[in-house]
């Protein structure tokens, strides 16, 4: 049975190195206890190791069915992370979702901080720069970030890599995982209190270019360059007691460019789209039990091909806490509708998929957790299904330092 435990070991070593570096740096807490100055540097990080295997599935063919493709992903398979082409097959693997990250914050002035975060992934050992921005604090309510940041597309988007922060092994792939996850630009942020209601909001704008895009590698046999440009978005979140309510909206232009199209055409712009996405999250956390819910919709007007793609997605889950144990059950759904502007008589094509997951989490102290998750995924895309049905078992270890 072929496994890739070497990838897991590489990530564990990266996490241990980061932890050692963190301990070597002057700790702000120690400095405070001595009555001295806090260190201007803070080094923190996170580690997630995930091992997974498809137990059974409905397909027996490569994921990408175009001619001359490599057989890297042979189904039965399960796409757990669309943004990073994290695919599990019938062989136990640790590469698709394992990752380690380190973040450094340097406080240059009381109101000016530089933050940088880099991540290495099981299948992509070269560090990715996730964050690299200046934080300017106007006052206790307003601040601005300028530089490279994570796109807060949906609720879990900007902390999707922090496994300790949520009950699943990873946020549902029916909702999460698109071509771009970061942008270079500016965000203006607010947080404050209105009575007992805690409020936070942000507006942001910028651009992103991704070479050798991992998401489109799931669709094509060749590498593509993806651009999200003229990104404009915003979100607002309210917290009161056990309730959390968040809404989000984003508009961007999207282009995919490849060396050649799969059908041998001469043009190299595979697609040009205008994308609008919006959604709402409603969570209730009564401490001993909690409910997580989210609904989002993407509308992409595709000017190459003349069609509109509408993708409503949602997820609903509930869990209970028994000391360090947290069982959690979740259902997620992805709907995809294509409408062809120049083919009014052509029926809508629909590509629904979704699945149940059952997760058991055990907290080891306050900085680590182990999770076991079983997924039952269905794929009812019309015509040729994409990845097919799959039943999957995964185990993860999360740690922050």
């Amino acid at each position: 049975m072929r496994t890739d435990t070497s990838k897991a070991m590489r990530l564990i070593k990266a996490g241990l190195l980061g932890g050692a570096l963190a301990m070597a740096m002057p700790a702000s807490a120690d400095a405070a206890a001595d009555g001295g100055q806090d260190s201007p540097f803070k080094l923190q990080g996170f580690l997630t190791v995930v091992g997974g295997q498809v137990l059974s599935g409905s397909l027996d063919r490569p994921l990408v069915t175009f001619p001359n493709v490599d057989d890297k992903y042979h189904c039965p398979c399960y796409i757990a992370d669309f943004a990073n082409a994290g695919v599990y097959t019938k062989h136990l693997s640790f590469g698709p979702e394992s990752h380690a990250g380190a973040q450094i914050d340097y406080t240059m002035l009381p109101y000016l901080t530089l933050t940088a975060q880099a991540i290495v992934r099981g299948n992509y050992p070269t560090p990715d720069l996730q964050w690299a921005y200046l934080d300017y604090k106007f006052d206790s309510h307003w601040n601005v970030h300028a530089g490279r940041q994570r796109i807060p597309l949906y609720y879990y988007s900007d902390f999707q890599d922090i496994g300790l922060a949520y009950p699943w092994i990873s946020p549902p792939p029916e909702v999460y995982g698109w071509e771009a996850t970061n942008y270079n630009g500016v965000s203006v942020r607010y947080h404050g209190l209105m009575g007992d209601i805690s409020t936070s909001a942000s507006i942001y704008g910028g651009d992103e270019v991704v070479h050798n895009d991992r998401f489109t590698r799931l669709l094509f046999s060749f590498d593509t360059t993806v651009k999200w440009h003229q990104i404009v978005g915003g979100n607002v979140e309210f917290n009161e007691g056990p309730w959390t309510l968040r809404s989000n909206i984003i508009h961007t232009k999207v282009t995919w460019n490849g060396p050649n199209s799969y059908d041998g055409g001469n043009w190299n712009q595979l697609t040009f789209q205008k994308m609008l996405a919006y959604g709402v999250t409603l969570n209730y956390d009564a401490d001993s039990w909690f409910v997580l819910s989210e609904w989002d919709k993407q509308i992409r007007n595709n000017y190459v091909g003349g069609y509109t793609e509408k993708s409503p997605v949602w997820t609903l889950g509930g869990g209970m806490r028994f000391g360090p144990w947290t069982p959690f059950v979740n259902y997620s759904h992805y709907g995809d509708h294509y409408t062809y502007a120049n083919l009014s008589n052509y029926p809508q094509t629909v590509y629904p998929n979704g699945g149940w997951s059952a997760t058991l989490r055990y907290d080891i102290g306050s900085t680590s957790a182990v999770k076991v998750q079983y997924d039952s995924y269905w794929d009812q895309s019309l015509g040729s299904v994409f990845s097919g049905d799959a039943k999957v078992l995964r185990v993860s270890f999360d740690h922050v330092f």
Partner: protein
Amino acid sequence: MGALAVASVCWGAANAGDYVVVVSAKSPVDKLTGEQVTQIFLGKTESFPSGGNAVPIDQAESSPVRGDFDSKTLGKSTAQVKAYWSKIVFTGKGHPPKEVASSADVKGLVSGNPSYIGYIEKSAIDSSVKVVFSE
């Protein structure tokens, strides 16, 4: 004698987590609700309700009062608090309160700065600090 020893151990254990939330004796802050203390310690506000900066001082997880403060006042286990701050830290939205090792260290900081707020064991109360909340 054996029964007394057992009783004293139980009494000691029951009181290990008794704590109060304090500010400097020179602070203009008088009283806070549990919700207001929670908002300060979870970074939802940087100000006292009556005005002025509010800088929370936490105790290390090894402290006997830390677990009780998290569960009774913040309403979360220490693991849940850590998960909450992980989300905040790694999305650039803030940092957890500075941590010190003991109630003595909390008093050392709080008594010297009217902006600081911390929690200490009831037995550690003295004239350098003022109690603004107790469970």
